C-alpha cells in the first residue's frame, strides 16, 4: 500500500496511478495513457518520502507517503508554467492547465523559439510556436504507428520538433493522425480538430473502409447543416485500440454534399435528371421487367442486412442465383482452402493474437497500404522483437522491417511455399506432436514436399535457397508463428493451392488452435466475410449452404414465401474483373 495525501491505495503501478486511484488530482502534460512515460514536462511532480519525484514514471513504492498538494508544489507548478510561457505559447488543454496553476506569462522575459509553421500536409498542420516539447506526438508516431516521422532536433533551448528537413508533407508521415490525438497544445492540428467542432453529437460505428473493422466515433455537428465534423478512433478493446488510419480518420469528407448524390437521378432522353424516390423506383422496376435477364452485384462494403436483402431480391424476385461480389473471387481461394484444412472458411486467429506471436509471416499483402491499422500493430510486434518474414515481390513498407524478405517472382507462391515447407522438414523444425494429434496425410505429404527443395526452385522463384532456409529456421524455431496472407496470394491462378500451403505451414509448426498463433486471410473490404455469409455468391445460399442443397432451398423458400431458383448461378467475371484489378492496384 502507498499513502497518497492521507489515503491508502495499492502500490505496484506508478505514483501517478496511485494518485488517480486515491482521487488526488495530479496535473500532467506529457503523459498519455497509451504511450510510454516520457518524463519531459515535469508537471506531475509530487513529494514522495521527502523527495521530489515525477509521478508519471516513478514506481509507487510500498509503504511510501506521497503529498501532491503543498505550498512548495503549488509554487513550483506556477513557476514551471511561467517558464513554459516564456518559451512558447501553447493553446488548448496545455494552455488551460497552465492557467490553472496561476501562471500568467509575466514572470520571465519571453525567449520564444523560432516560430516554425508548416501547413504543407493535407491533414496535419504544425504550428511550433505552440509546441511545449512534451514529445507526445513523437511517441505516438513511434509507439502507435511505428513510423518515426517526428523527432526533436537541436539541443537545449534550441530544441524543436522536426521531421528531417524540407516540407512536412514530403516526410515520412502517413497521416494516421495518432499525433493529432496526442498533442495537448494544438501545435499539431488538422482541419478536423478546429475548436468550433467541439459541441457535437457522437455515434459509435464500424469503419467502412478496409477489413480491419476499426471502431470509430463519428462526431456530427448538430443543427440544420448537420454533417460529419471529425472521426476518432474508439474503444480500446476494438481491433484498432482507438487508433485509425488516414482513410478512416479523414475519408469522411466524401460525405459532404458537394462530393455525393443527394437525390435519385433517372435517365430521360439520354440525360440524368433529378427525380423523386417513387419515380426512381418505378423506373427501376420497369427496366428490370423489360430485361431478358438480370444479375446482382454487391459491394462488400455494404452492411450484412443490405447484402442479405440483395441476394434475397435476386433469388426471390429476379429468380436467379446470378448474385456475386468482387470480393468473392478475391477470397474464394481462402474459403476453399481454409474450409478444407480447418473445417472453417475464416481466420483461425485474431489481431490480438499477433501480439503474442514470436514469428509473423505476411504473404502477398501490403498492410501499410491496404490495412494500415493492422500494419501499425504488425510493426509494433516486430519492433518488440517478433521475427518478421515477408513473402512478396514488392519491397513493401513492412518488408523494410523484415528479418527476411523473400522477394519472389510474381506468381511463384506455390513453389516458394513448398520449398519453405521442405526446409522445415529437412531440418526437422516441425511440431511432430501437433501433427500426430491433429493432422492427416503426413506419410504422403512429407516425401512429396521433400522433393521441392529451395535449391530446386530458386531459379523459378528468384529467391536464393539460403534465404528460404533462413526464413524456415526463424519460423521453425518460433514458439508461436502467426500467418497472414492477402490478395497477392488469392488472386493468382494458383491461389487456392497457395492458401493450402500456408495452412500446411501452420500445421507443420503447430500454429493452429493456440493463443498467439493462426492463419488470417486479409480480406479487402470491410464486409467481405459478411457478403459470403449472407449468400452473395452464385453457388451458396445464406449461411454457406450450397445452392444444390434442396433442404436448404426449401427452408428459405418457406421463410421467404417465394420459390428459389435451382440452377446454379454464374460468376460475374466480366463485370468484376476490371473492378478487382483497380482495387488490387490501389489497395493490396
Amino acid at each position: 500500500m502507498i499513502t497518497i495525501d492521507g489515503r491508502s491505495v495499492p502500490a505496484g503501478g506508478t505514483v501517478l496511478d496511485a494518485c488517480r486511484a486515491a482521487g488526488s488530482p495530479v496535473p500532467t502534460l506529457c503523459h498519455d495513457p497509451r504511450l510510454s512515460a516520457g518524463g519531459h514536462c515535469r508537471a506531475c511532480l509530487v513529494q514522495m518520502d521527502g523527495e521530489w519525484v515525477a509521478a508519471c514514471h516513478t514506481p509507487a513504492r510500498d509503504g511510501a507517503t506521497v503529498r501532491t498538494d503543498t505550498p512548495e508544489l503549488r509554487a513550483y507548478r506556477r513557476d514551471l508554467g511561467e517558464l513554459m510561457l516564456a518559451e512558447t505559447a501553447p493553446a488548448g488543454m496545455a494552455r488551460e492547465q497552465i492557467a490553472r496553476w496561476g501562471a500568467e506569462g509575466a514572470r520571465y522575459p519571453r525567449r520564444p523559439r523560432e516560430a516554425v509553421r508548416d501547413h504543407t500536409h493535407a491533414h496535419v498542420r504544425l504550428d511550433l510556436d505552440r509546441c511545449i516539447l512534451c514529445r507526445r506526438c513523437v511517441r505516438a508516431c513511434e509507439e502507435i504507428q511505428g513510423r518515426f516521422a517526428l523527432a526533436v532536433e537541436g539541443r537545449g533551448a534550441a530544441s524543436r520538433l522536426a521531421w528531417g528537413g524540407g516540407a512536412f508533407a514530403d516526410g515520412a508521415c502517413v497521416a494516421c493522425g495518432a499525433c493529432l490525438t496526442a498533442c495537448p497544445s494544438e501545435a499539431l492540428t488538422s482541419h478536423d480538430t478546429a475548436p468550433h467542432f467541439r459541441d457535437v453529437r457522437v455515434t459509435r460505428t464500424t469503419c467502412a473502409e478496409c477489413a480491419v473493422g476499426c471502431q470509430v466515433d463519428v462526431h456530427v455537428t448538430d443543427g440544420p447543416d448537420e454533417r460529419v465534423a471529425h472521426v476518432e478512433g474508439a474503444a480500446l478493446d476494438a481491433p484498432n485500440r482507438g487508433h485509425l488510419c488516414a482513410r478512416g480518420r479523414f475519408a469522411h469528407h466524401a460525405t459532404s454534399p458537394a462530393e455525393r448524390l443527394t437525390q435519385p437521378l433517372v435517365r430521360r432522353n439520354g440525360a440524368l435528371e433529378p427525380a423523386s424516390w417513387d419515380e426512381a423506383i418505378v423506373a427501376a422496376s420497369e427496366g428490370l421487367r423489360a430485361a431478358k435477364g438480370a444479375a446482382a452485384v454487391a459491394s462488400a462494403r455494404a452492411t450484412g442486412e443490405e447484402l442479405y436483402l440483395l441476394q434475397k431480391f435476386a433469388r426471390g424476385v429476379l429468380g436467379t442465383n446470378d448474385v456475386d461480389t468482387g470480393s468473392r473471387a478475391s477470397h474464394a481461394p481462402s474459403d476453399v482452402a481454409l474450409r478444407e484444412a480447418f473445417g472453417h472458411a475464416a481466420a483461425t486467429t485474431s489481431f490480438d493474437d499477433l501480439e503474442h506471436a514470436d514469428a509473423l509471416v505476411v504473404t502477398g499483402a501490403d498492410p501499410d497500404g491496404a490495412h494500415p491499422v493492422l500494419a501499425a500493430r504488425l510493426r509494433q510486434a516486430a519492433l518488440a522483437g517478433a521475427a518478421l518474414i515477408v513473402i512478396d515481390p514488392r519491397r513493401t513498407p513492412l518488408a523494410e522491417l523484415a528479418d527476411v524478405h523473400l522477394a519472389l517472382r510474381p506468381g511463384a507462391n506455390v513453389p516458394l511455399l513448398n520449398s519453405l515447407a521442405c526446409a522445415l522438414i529437412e531440418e526437422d523444425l516441425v511440431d511432430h506432436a501437433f501433427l500426430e494429434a491433429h493432422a492427416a496425410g503426413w506419410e504422403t505429404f512429407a516425401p512429396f514436399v521433400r522433393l521441392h527443395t529451395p535449391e530446386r526452385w530458386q531459379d523459378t522463384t528468384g529467391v536464393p535457397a539460403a534465404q528460404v532456409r533462413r526464413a524456415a529456421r526463424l519460423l521453425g524455431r518460433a514458439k508461436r508463428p502467426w500467418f497472414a496472407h492477402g490478395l497477392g496470394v488469392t488472386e493468382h491462378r494458383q491461389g487456392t493451392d497457395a492458401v493450402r500451403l500456408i495452412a500446411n505451414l501452420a500445421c507443420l509448426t503447430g500454429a493452429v488452435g493456440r493463443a498467439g498463433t493462426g492463419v488470417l486471410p486479409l480480406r479487402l473490404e470491410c464486409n467481405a466475410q459478411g457478403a459470403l455469409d449472407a449468400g452473395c455468391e452464385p453457388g451458396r445460399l445464406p449461411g454457406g449452404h450450397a445452392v444444390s442443397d434442396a433442404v436448404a432451398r426449401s427452408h428459405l423458400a418457406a421463410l421467404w414465401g417465394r420459390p428459389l431458383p435451382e440452377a446454379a448461378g454464374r460468376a460475374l467475371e466480366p463485370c468484376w474483373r476490371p473492378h478487382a484489378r483497380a482495387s488490387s492496384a490501389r489497395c493490396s
Partner: protein
Amino acid sequence: MSERLESDVPRPAPPVPEARLRERMRRRAPEPPAGNALADFAAGLAPEDVVVRRGLPTAAAHAVRSFYHQLEPGLRVCDGTACRFGGRELLRAKLESHGGEPMHVRCLGHCHAAPAFRQGNTVYAKPADIEVGAWLDLWGEGVHPVADLVPPARTSLAAEPVVLRHVLAPQRTAPRFEDWELPAGDAVLDAIERAQLRGRGGASMATHEKWRIARDTPAAERFVVANAGEGDPGSFVGRLLLEEDPHAVLAGMLACARAIGARRGFLYVRAEYPLAQRSARRAIEDAREEGLLGGHFDVELVIGAGAYVCGEETALLAAIEGRRGEPRRRPPEPMESGLWGAPTVVQNVETFAVVPWAVRHGRPHGTKAVSLSGAVQRTGVVETPVGTPIERVLREAGGGPPPGREWKMAVIGGPLGTVVPASRFDTPLAWDALPGMGHGGIVVLDDTVSARDVAMHLFAFAAAESCGSCTPCRAGVTQLALARDRAALERLLDTIHMGSLCSFGRSVPRPLRDLLRHFGDEVFA
C-alpha cells in the same frame, strides 16, 4: 518443433522505440556497419547517407546530427573554468588577430595548462612556466604556438598511490600487461567487495553491488562500459589515465566482464580528447595482439561527438547506441537495462584503472586522484587520501597561491559541483563532508575574480549544455542570466532543482546556491 534453441531467443526489447528500430535494422543487416551513427557523422557523412547506411528514419538522423556540437573539430577555444579565468579572452583575441574565427568547446581537459584551444585534432595549451601574455607574444606572425601536448604533472600525497601507480612510476618500467592476470569472476567480485570500491565519479553505489545486480539480472547478453566522457571543466584524471595508462583501464574492464559474464565492452572517449583516443586505440590493438582481448571479451572504442551531458550514464549509453545523448528517466538502472536493453555496468575510467589493483590486493582503497588547476603554483593531478583537507592539497601539491595573489574560492567537482570559499578550505575532500565534490577536480580562483563572473560562467555553462529534454532545465537555464535579484534567482534554482529529470538539472543549482550563500550580493554586483 523438436528443438527450440534458447540461444536464438531475441534480446529483450530496448525500452525506447527508436532503439528497438535500430536494433532491428542492425539485426537484419547482412553485415552490420561498424561503429555508430556518431562515427558516421564525424566521418563527414550527411544525415541522408546515415539514413541509408544504418536504416535510420530521416527525422532521427537529423535529430542525432543536430544534438552534438563537436562533429567539426575546427578551431575552438576552450571555455572551461580554468581557461575562462586563465586568459581565454587574450587567447581568443590573438587567434582572431591571426584571422581565425574560433568556435567554442567545453572543455579540452588542459585546465592545468590554461588557456587551451584545439585546431583539428591537435590541442595547444600554455606551458606552466610562462605568463599568458608572454606565451601569446611568442607566436610569430601567422605561426602557431609552440606548445603542444603538455602532459599534466602528477604527484601523490598518499603513501601508496593506487590510481597513479603506473603514471608515477619512474621511467614507466612497469610491464603494460602485468594487471591482466585475473582470477575467476567470483574471486574478482569478492576482491572488489573487500576493496570497498565505490564509483570514482562520485556516484555512491558500491561497485560490487552494481556488478552483482548486472550479473544476476537474467539476460542473453551483458555489456561493460568505461565512461571517459569527462566533460567537467577542471577534471582531467581520466585523460591522463587514458593517455598514459590505458592498459589498466582495459584490464579493469576485462575483470568486470569476467565478474558479470560480458563478452563485449565499450570504451567511450569524448570528442575533445584526441590524444586519449589515439592512445586508447593503440592499447586495444596491443591487447588484441597479446590475445588478452578479442576472444571471450573485446572492447570497442566509441568516440563522442560533443555533449557534456553524455557523461551521465543513460545519456552515455544512448550516445554509444548512436542516438541523441539525452538522459532518460530511471528506473530501470543501466545495470538492469542498459545498452540495447541488456544489463550494463558503467564505470568511470578511474574506477576501472583501480580495479586490477583491487583484485590483486583486496585491500580497502582510500585514495582519490584529483585534478588541480587555476590559481596554484603547480597544477596537475594529485592522488590524495580521501578526507585530506582542501588546503593541504592546495599547498602541498599545488605549492600555494601564485606570488602576490590570494585565494578567493575553489570550484570543485566541475560547474555542477560545489563552490567552496577560501575561508572553508579546511573542509576535507570527502563525499560526505563535501556534497557535490563528485570527481573532486579543483579549479582555484583568486581575488581578481568576482562572484558575479563565476556566476555568469556557471550560467553560460548550464545554458550551453542542457540537453533540453525536460522543461524545468531547458526553459530554466536560459533564464538564469536574466534573473533580476536574489529572490528571483532562488525561485528559479528551486524549480530547476526540484523538477529536472536527471542529475544535470538537479545539480545546476548547487554551486550557484554556494555562491549566493558565501558571496551574497556580489553575485548581483
